[in-house]
């Protein structure tokens, strides 16, 4: 993309955020005082949007559900259930009824709130898209909306709906297929995963070509053609998991279209994509434009940093000392890999930013950041040291109940702004970016050739890798990241490389599933000492349970095996 185009994009992005502001203002506006007594009602033609501005603002409502992608249950389902992330129970912090330990131990149950959260994320998005499609169609039928205008919006909504259905079948497998707002069944039955996949892919293959190909401020943060193609590529890449029938050639073709024709470029600096000012980088295909004022909710700063880190970054509020990465995952990065970042030492703070915050921490004035509440038996003492770096101790002593307050290397991928609000960051969150698409194509090629030295696949992998590390891969096979002393695994090094590049970007669970490794949880699980905690292995854990409350409300839903 030309620099001038990106400048134009940046200038116009305030408009995107302003749209979000309008939506939020509408949602939170309480200044209305028409006192006519009216009962809440279902959607009727009388309360459809009647003006064009209402139509456009309504379209924005379809995107609000994406706000949970970078912080809520989708993140827990896709990341905390894997070998890349964990939330230890630090005494009485982060106990939460054992929720976080169950994520790590794969011991989730049909009563865990996260299952409801994932379901609500998916079907909330599906329902909003269905409702808006229905309303637009009625307006067209009434002659009050231009059919061409409606067709463009409806194609966009179908792509959005496809995204949410992708997540639903990925997490829950068989789910109801609801595509019509007005004529939805009262208690629809679960539909086989393969059938839902087939319907969603067919719908996307029809809708995506109708989406705009422009990459500028008008399509940033929206489902344009390239975002739709990347969505399809993801579905194809996982088709074998979802249906038993691979579609790697289709995945390769979709990725090739995006890579060759989308006009995207890898940024020279990996971290440009995660900076506080990362809006509109040349690598962004589909992003959530989080913003402290207009679109809050991205809060990895709060979730990962220690309480005392408030003074490292002069944050406006105290972080919560929760999420961190696992030792084996961190160690799967070579020390020369720029994505790993520096380690703070007793002599001074880390200099180079990385995906992680490791080692000794310092206040913004250069003085040591101390944890006055440090556990008395923590060998690190009060000088804050993430991951016990340099001590020879494990980076995380245990999952619970007494993980040290300083235990664990933290997530530093997204820039923490000095003076920022840890609960509402300004960084945009890439749902799809070019680096991911290149690696998807490499995987699709490798899975078709089954050749660990597939030259085309290696070229693509090294294209992404080389901006972070000088040593290039010569084979795609190798031990996997959580068992580096173990045997070589087919595609193991490709698996590791995707993990290193896409850390904490809602990818890891699907990777583990495609490699058949998701239920190898015993290989990466931390020592767990809470009474009652159990480690659950088994193929059934590859799918999450449908929450009990959903089953209770609809007896036609069939629970996934192993959760009754």
């Amino acid at each position, binding site marked *: 993309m030309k620099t001038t185009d990106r400048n134009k994009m940046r200038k116009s992005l305030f408009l995107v955020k302003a749209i979000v502001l309008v939506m939020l203002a509408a949602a939170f506006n309480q200044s209305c005082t028409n006192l006519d007594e009216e009962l809440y009602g279902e959607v009727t033609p009388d309360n459809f949007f009647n003006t064009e501005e209402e139509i456009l603002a309504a379209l924005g409502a379809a995107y609000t559900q994406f706000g949970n992608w970078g912080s809520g249950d989708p993140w827990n389902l896709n990341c905390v259930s894997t070998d890349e992330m964990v939330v230890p129970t630090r005494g009485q912090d982060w106990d*939460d009824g054992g929720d976080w330990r169950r994520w790590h131990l794969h011991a989730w149950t049909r009563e865990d709130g996260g299952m409801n959260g994932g379901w*609500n994320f998916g079907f909330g998005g599906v329902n909003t898209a269905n409702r808006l499609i229905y309303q637009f169609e009625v307006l067209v039928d009434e002659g009050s909306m231009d059919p061409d205008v409606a067709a463009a919006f409806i194609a966009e909504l179908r792509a959005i709906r496809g995204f949410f259905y992708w997540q639903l079948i990925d997490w829950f497998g068989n789910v109801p297929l609801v595509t019509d707002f007005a004529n939805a069944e009262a208690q629809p039955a679960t539909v086989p995963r393969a059938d839902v996949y087939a319907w969603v892919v067919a719908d996307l293959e029809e809708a995506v070509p109708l989406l705009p190909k422009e990459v500028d401020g008008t399509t940033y943060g929206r489902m344009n053609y390239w975002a739709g193609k990347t969505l399809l590529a993801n579905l194809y890449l996982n088709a074998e998991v979802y249906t038993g029938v691979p579609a790697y050639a289709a995945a390769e073709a979709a990725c090739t279209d995006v890579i060759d024709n989308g006009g995207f470029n890898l940024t020279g600096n990996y971290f440009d994509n995660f900076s506080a000012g990362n809006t509109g980088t040349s690598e962004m295909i589909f992003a959530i434009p989080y913003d402290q004022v207009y679109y809050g909710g991205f809060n990895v700063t709060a979730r990962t940093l220690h309480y005392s880190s408030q003074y490292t970054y002069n944050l406006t509020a105290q972080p919560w000392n929760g999420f961190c990465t696992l030792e084996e995952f961190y160690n799967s990065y070579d020390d020369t890999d720029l994505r790993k970042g520096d380690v703070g030492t007793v002599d001074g703070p880390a200099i180079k930013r990385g995906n992680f915050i490791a080692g000794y921490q310092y206040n913004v004035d250069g003085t040591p950041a101390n944890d006055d509440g440090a556990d008395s038996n923590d060998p690190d003492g009060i000088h804050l040291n993430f991951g016990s770096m340099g001590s020879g101790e494990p980076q995380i002593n245990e999952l619970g109940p007494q993980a040290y307050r300083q235990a664990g290397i933290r997530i530093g991928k997204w820039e923490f702004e000095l003076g920022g609000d840890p609960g509402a960051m300004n960084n945009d969150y890439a749902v799809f970016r070019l680096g991911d698409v290149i690696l998807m194509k490499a995987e699709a090629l490798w899975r078709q050739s089954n050749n660990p030295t597939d030259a085309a696949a290696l070229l693509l992998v090294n294209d992404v890798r080389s901006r972070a590390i000088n040593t290039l891969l010569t084979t795609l096979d190798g031990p996997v990241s959580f068992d580096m002393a173990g045997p070589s695994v087919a595609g193991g090094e490709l698996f590791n490389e995707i993990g290193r590049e896409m850390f904490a970007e809602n990818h890891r669970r699907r990777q583990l599933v495609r490699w058949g490794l998701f239920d190898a949880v015993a290989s990466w699980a931390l020592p767990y000492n809470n009474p009652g905690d159990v480690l659950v292995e088994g193929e059934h854990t590859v799918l999450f349970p449908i929450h009990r409350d959903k089953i209770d409300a609809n007896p036609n839903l069939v629970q996934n095996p192993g959760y009754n």
Partner: protein
Amino acid sequence: MKWMKWMVLASFAALIVGGCTPGKTYERRLKRELASGIRYDSLFMGLSFGMTQKEFYEHCWDMNKDSIIKQGSANMSVQYDLNEELEHPATMNFYPKFDSGKIVEMPVRFIYNGWAPWTKELSASNLALDVKNWYEDIYGKGFITVTHPMNGDAYTKIDGNRRITIYVENDLYVWARFTDMLAGLEKDSLSANQN
């Protein structure tokens, strides 16, 4: 680009021009309650306006230890499970707004646990009514209905400095918002009308 500019401007205009006309009943009640000089600071679960951040954390910590509340599912709030209070099992998430280190507003988000697109009885519209009925048991009668052009109806009640507003966010969620009307946080036209 042009259509986006137009969309933004038109949307703001719609909010400003097409917004609701201030109603006399609401204004009268607001004026009367603010003039009463009576403070209603209590919220729920022992929380209240004016609590410091430290007091809030400590109180929530205690409730967390007692397994009354837990980290919210979106990692951004405090979660409390409503098993008996409403017509159907539901979840409420809350996290206050602080001004000068003290609670001045408490937004609370509700959802029926069994929500799905096809369970119409578990719609946000019904949930809002359910929450209003529950709150009438707690905070007393007197909610009035106000209408928003894009978000449907809302219920509001004012007692002294405490305003409670209940409204639907979307197909899933309902918000109840407790606002200390004397805390200087309120910026909408209603408070301006009282000056």
